[in-house]
């Protein structure tokens, strides 16, 4: 995540940020809206974007799933007066690491070549997925439409 950010920052300037909000239709479980934002229409294919968001939603659902493993973890923690969490990682934390790796991979392979960077939602309090849209500094002052061509050809 960091290296991609630095590369983009030095050669491009931040033009805009798009925020994907949470989808609360199924309760308080972490889920993001898959609605495709207008600002990204010229930057990335709809299917790629939706795939990313759906995969993230699946990760979060897996982290928050209430089932056998979470019960076991909860009961074990209770019996040890929750001291066990000093030694082992909770399931949620393990999934968050997987999510961080996934986002970095997506940034490197798909989003950075298009001049976009996804910020991990955990850094924004799990409220939004922040997508930063970068412009090429070479075409500074021009509109986003023209620089998107150079962005995609850089891939």
């Amino acid at each position: 995540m960091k290296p991609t950010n630095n590369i983009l920052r030095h050669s491009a300037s931040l033009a805009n940020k798009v925020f994907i909000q949470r989808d609360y239709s199924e309760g308080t479980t972490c889920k993001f809206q898959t609605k495709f934002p207008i600002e990204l229409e010229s930057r990335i294919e709809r299917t790629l974007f939706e795939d990313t968001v759906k995969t993230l939603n699946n990760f979060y659902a897996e982290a928050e799933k209430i089932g056998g493993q979470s019960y076991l973890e909860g009961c074990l923690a209770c019996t040890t007066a929750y001291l066990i969490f000093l030694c082992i990682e909770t399931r949620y934390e393990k999934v968050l690491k997987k999510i961080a790796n996934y986002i970095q991979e997506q940034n490197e392979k798909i989003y950075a070549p298009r001049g976009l960077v996804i910020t991990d939602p955990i850094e924004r309090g799990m409220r939004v997925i922040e997508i930063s849209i970068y412009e090429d500094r070479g075409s500074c002052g021009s509109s986003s439409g023209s620089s998107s061509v150079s962005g995609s050809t850089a891939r």
Partner: protein
Amino acid sequence: MHLGVSESMRECEYSQISTRSSTPMETPYKKKTPKRRKWESFPGRNKFYCDGRIMMAKQTGVFYLTLVLILVTCGLFFTNDCRFLAENLTPAIPVIGGALFLFVLGTLLRTSFSDPGVLPRATADEAADLERQIDVANGSTGYRPPPRTKEVVINGQTVKLKYCFTCKIFRPPRASHCSLCDNCVERFDHHCPWVGNCVGRRNYRFFYMFILSLSFLTIFIFAFVITNIILRSHKNGFLDALKDSPASVLEVVVCFFSVWSIVGLSGFHTYLISSNQTTNEDIKGSWSSKRGKDNHNPYSHGNIFTNCCAALCGPLPPSLIDRRGFIQSDAPQLAPPTNGITTYGATQSQQSHMCDQDQCIQSTKFVLQAATTPLLQQQSSEPVILTASPENVAPLPARTSLSLAGPCTSLPLGQPTPPTSTPSLSCHEATDMLPIHGHGHTHNHSHPYQEPVAHHHYLTPEEVPSPPGMLPCGSPLGHSHTMQAGFYNPASQDSLHEDSVRGLVKLSSV
């Protein structure tokens, strides 16, 4: 790519030498400041200990009372009664008592010291994006209606999400803003002074375990202290028994009064858990059928067992506020530089002490020069406003004084004090208020969102101002205040005005 950065840095170095330059105020060299952890600049009213590992509410007096009560009562029980009971009944009594005591203490400390599920406040860009969306929804009239709600349908039930003016977010369902801690907390249950913390999503199970185990412990001690007295009075008589173990009286009294409240509380929370409600929702009657025929709790899993398991054995979400992380000073922000006057959320200001002193001296010179000539206030206020909210204001002042009356009066949009007919008066008010949050305070805090927050504060008069930048301050504004006093006539000395403007620009970013 990398060259681009160093080139701009070299530009700034040259700006230090020329006295009449209007180049950006970015720092020419980075001074190595010790890295600060995020908890040190946490905006809420919490106290942190052990370098951010422990998080509590501001008022912790009652928590210490709880601790003292538990320790003293249990201490007396173990030293006073246990020996007799272990000898005459069974040694299992102190063992069970000890285990219960340790469990109670562990859960209490866990409840009190952990993050209840605080939602971090919105970044400047997020807040701006939300404001834009709300503007579009409202039709962008000048006046913003105070209540901002969003409706969502959760499992067939319509739920209203409220906008939090302090945190600049739409609160997720079941979240609430704690006025004592000044934070939005996820799945907010209540603020408990006895544990010295809010009870929310992340520490509710510890809280429940605490009150449950405490009720068992209280009943346990109560029962066995009574047993102790009865056994002793069989041997020696009642009065002698009381004389032999005087502490028992104290223990009985404490336990008697505690048992009612604690057992009652445990019962209440058992009911809440089994119906998957929070104290907040129960008190407000959010899901009561009295509100509507179809009103039901959309979060309930249907049966009591699943609800209990979900609340107590569900996955423990991580803390969202990252207390022990280091503050990143190089986060890019969207606020476009208007003639380079903007400061990137005051993070760069942390590194600018040395060269600022030179600029301060020069700026003060310009300011004092300008102060000796009659000056139009409006002109002086203009650059100050720019540092406060760069994205909203037109670029640097025009030459003529009259044209400035326009942007100045339009600035206090939605302020509680409407612009009066005399432009100079309203600008006086604006100058009074805006520099206060434009200046020194942006540099004392490393909140990137301080500046737009400061601007929007005036649009919501009912909100308690949390950023301390709102408070009037003395020092660097002394210069600008002396200038404002009574200078109402428009002046036409453009070059001096330019100098004073530049001086104020530099002064304001010190």
